[in-house]
């Protein structure tokens, strides 16, 4: 069973969502929404329900393990994690712990992969009022789009009200982009001048959220390469400004990792989490052909779990991460 939103969000003392008063929609608009939802579900079903064929394990010999290695490498899992997974499975088969049977070996492989993907798993902590969520990541990985989607889901699934902080004051038209998403998701937007201090925008957004009794503040930040020390320092500063208002905040810091990213994704996660203490990964663009295997390496090496996955460019295209589904899809034909 796929993981639900309720499972991955910790709402604390807040009443979990249930029925939200949705405004009356025109019938054709409504149909549009459902069609999109169906489409997006089938898209992610495609991406997530095909399985590794058991025929890979029809005959189990050296070549099997080599083919398995190849498949994991092609999924961007990376050599160290690949070697560890294959070694483990191979040992279990050799020792007789797993029977030499195609289906059994495949199922055990999926289990092992899911175990690795579950490393450090924890719900998103949105129990504080307001809860502060900060999005960080390398340029173009999908931060702004993801914020739009999260806001929409939080309000549709759990009835939370969201304020967005346009703290990317650097990139041209970044605030306009977030503004469109705020409109689509029915969230409020706080923005500053282009080139203004990103910390100040976050600060204002928190004040606005408090004044209005909003549930969640989501802070968009400018994309930056983890190698840009000064920009990483700037990000840490935004965090400190937030902490001046709420010492425990940000309650949830998410890094967006593009599923097409190769081995560099590990460096991204490592250095971002050194700067701002990342709680989880949003693995974006899984609707393409990339498998996002680097997320396994990130979980196993850094103990940072994937929490959400992006499967398209519309509001609906965001889903709770499910380790089992991910394990199955990683090596699907």
């Amino acid at each position, binding site marked *: 069973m796929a993981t639900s939103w309720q499972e991955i969000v910790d709402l604390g003392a807040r009443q979990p969502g249930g029925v939200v008063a949705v405004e009356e929609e025109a019938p054709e608009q409504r149909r549009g929404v459902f069609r999109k939802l169906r489409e997006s579900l089938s898209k992610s079903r495609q991406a997530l329900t095909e399985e590794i064929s058991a025929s890979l394990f029809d005959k189990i010999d*050296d070549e099997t*393990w*080599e083919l398995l*290695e*190849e498949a994991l*490498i*092609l*999924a*961007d899992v*990376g*050599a*160290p994690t*690949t*070697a*560890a997974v*294959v*070694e483990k499975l191979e040992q279990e088969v050799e020792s007789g712990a797993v029977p030499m049977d195609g289906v059994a070996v495949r199922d055990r492989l999926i289990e092992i992969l899911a175990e690795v993907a579950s490393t450090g798993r924890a719900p998103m902590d949105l129990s504080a009022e307001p809860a502060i969520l900060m999005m960080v990541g*390398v*340029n*173009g*990985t*999908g931060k702004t789009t993801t914020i739009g989607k999260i806001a929409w889901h939080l309000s549709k699934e759990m009835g939370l009200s969201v304020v967005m902080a346009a703290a990317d004051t*650097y*990139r*041209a*038209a*970044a605030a*306009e*982009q977030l*503004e*469109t*998403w705020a409109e689509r998701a029915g969230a409020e937007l706080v923005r500053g001048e282009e080139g203004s201090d990103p910390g100040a925008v976050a600060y204002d957004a928190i004040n606005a959220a408090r004044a209005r009794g909003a549930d969640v503040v989501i802070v968009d930040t400018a994309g930056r*390469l*983890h*190698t*840009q*020390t*000064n920009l990483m320092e700037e990000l840490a500063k935004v965090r400190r400004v937030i902490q001046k208002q709420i010492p425990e905040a940000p309650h949830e810091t998410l890094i967006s990792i*593009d599923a*097409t*990213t*190769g*081995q*560099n*994704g590990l*460096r*991204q996660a490592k250095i971002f989490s050194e700067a701002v203490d990342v709680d989880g990964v949003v693995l974006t*663009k899984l*609707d*393409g*052909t*990339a*498998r996002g*295997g*680097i997320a396994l390496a990130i979980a196993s090496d850094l103990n940072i779990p994937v929490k959400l996955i992006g499967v398209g*460019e519309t509001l609906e295209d965001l889903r709770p991460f499910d380790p089992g589904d991910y394990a199955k899809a990683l090596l699907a034909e």
Partner: protein
Amino acid sequence: MFDQLSERLQSTLSEVRSRGKLSESDVDSAMREIRLALLEADVNFKVVKAFTKTLKERCLGEDVMSSLDPGQQVVKIVNEELASLMGGTGSELAMATSGPTVILMAGLQGSGKTTACAKLAQFFKKEGKDVALAACDVYRPAAVEQLVTMGGRAGAHVYERGTDADPVDIASWALAEAQSERRDVLIIDTAGRLHIDQDLMAELAKIRKQTRPHDVLLVVDAMTGQDAVGVAESFAEVAEFDGVVMTKLDGDARGGAALSVKAVTGKPILFASTGEKIEDFDKFHPDRMAQRILGMGDVLSLIEKAEQQVDEKEAEELQEKMRKDQFTLDDMLTQMKQVRKMGPLSGIIGMLPGMGAMKQLKNADVDEKELDRVEAIILSMTPRERANPGIINGSRRKRIANGSGTKVQNVNNLVKQFDQMRVLMKSMANGRMPTPQQMAQLAGGNQRAPRPKMRRR
């Protein structure tokens, strides 16, 4: 992280020299290391397989007697083969003989197209051309605004019709405008799209058909992993691109995608995008990329950077001093100051062969502090001590430590490192590259990441 390839090869092949020729099993173990290095750099698995096959044939029986050591020899061969696979230097854009040169930009979402468009515009502007941009990304929120702003910064005219018009129509209209306004170059920005999105790929093909561009450029993120091959193949089929713009090369990704894309499509990488500012853009150097993929460092770029900062005559004098073993702590201080002028240390270190893999040097903050300390120590020495560190005995060390606010231990370390450095410099000045082990020693450690135990040979 991955250890440096040449170090691995050197240790793998260390006993070969006595035999004079590489045997099949020597070559196999070398190929294993190369395979891992290339995979770590995100070169596509299948490309790696084909590449190591060619490489193996060339390495077998290669005469290594004359070379310094077999490891170096293999590295040299790898480097040559990689560079030739990446394509020689000097691929150029096709330009129109009359009327505007039309360039169509395409790529996945988030690969950096819009920024690359503005940078390319600026690139042509610098050549004195009249450049225009066409805003055909009507899907991503505020993409048009972004292009208008960035195009403005580049001094280019932007043709836009908001987000309600059809991208194919906008492109045709922009071309007609560019023709009648006699622009020299028209660059068409398109929305990012997945290579498996049939509708959007068909749209791209249509834009191509309508505008008959002189060049179609695929924009590829340098951090892309194994999927780069599938993406490039699909775009090659639908958009028949002529060349590639690699973006985000200012990061620390090894950029194996560049090799994969070149290998499967045969199209050259034409431009390198290396930052968010509009001027961070240049022609691509395939030979340097080969070295980067192997973790051999971008020595050429470093030399260029150094050239801007260092006075040539001074450098020659220094070289002479190194060769004669007359390098002093004063020289070191001067050099350090010059190096620090070149920018943050982390960037520079990444360009040095082998240094990229060294943990101690990765953390730039610590480095800068360490450098401050070294400077303070040297400044607390007398001119005689700086010229002749041999005389620095116990009591002098104590005095220096007090004067610089450091510990005697720090002074000891510096003197010791300086001695090692002098030996190294002497050999470098005489034309020999130091081994990575020597460099690692200099950096104060010699750690080795455990190597993944992959099965495939």
